[in-house]
């Protein structure tokens, strides 16, 4: 089975901190995605990547950046964390053959 591993299940960070959320997939998928999930708003796409060193903005990229230096790893960076970035962050990877697989999520609280 495809595994998408997010490095932390729960994180608490202070306002203004730089935050790194890491995601690793083990099935050589080309595509990787970062979503955030909030009650009443559903899943919203932050950034995605179709290949190494490539990135595309999703629907809500403001305040975030990403890095994909290796095919299996896609990092989400909060340059200066703010309280409105408190959320559940979900990473996913996909391929035409296997569809989409999600990680277990990182629940980030910014205080």
């Amino acid at each position, binding site marked *: 089975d495809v595994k*998408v591993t997010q490095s932390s299940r729960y994180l608490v960070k202070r306002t203004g901190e730089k935050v790194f959320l890491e995601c690793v997939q083990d099935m050589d998928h*080309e*595509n990787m*995605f970062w979503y955030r999930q909030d009650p*009443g*708003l*559903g*899943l919203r*796409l932050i950034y*995605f990547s179709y290949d190494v060193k490539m990135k595309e903005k*999703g629907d809500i990229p403001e305040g975030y950046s990403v890095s994909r230096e290796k095919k299996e790893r896609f990092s989400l960076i909060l340059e200066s964390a703010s309280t409105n970035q408190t959320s559940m962050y*979900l990473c*996913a990877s*996909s*391929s*035409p*053959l*296997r*569809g*989409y*697989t*999600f*990680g*277990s*999520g990182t*629940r980030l609280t910014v205080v």
Partner: protein
Amino acid sequence: QKEVEQDPGPLSVPEGAIVSLNCTYSNSAFQYFMWYRQYSRKGPELLMYTYSSGNKEDGRFTAQVDKSSKYISLFIRDSQPSDSATYLCAMSTTYGNNRLAFGKGNQVVVIP
């Protein structure tokens, strides 16, 4: 108009009842339609996917797609307490090679 509409209201049903969930969409280019199940504090997991219009059955689960009406449904027969979860519809123009458009999800509670 949002691309995908899913009434996010919670749903409570007694064990053994049929659960009916649905989504509407606006983009006629969508060809692949998926239902994800998400347990509390977990990531979504793929439950079923359907290509184009038609029905697909997998055990107690049936997915229906009506492209002419831009309407998709998920039915859960003989619901079990273990079916208690949030169900999200998702759709895409290609399979696995493009971004997904999600509904907001329905929280389903099956009462023993």
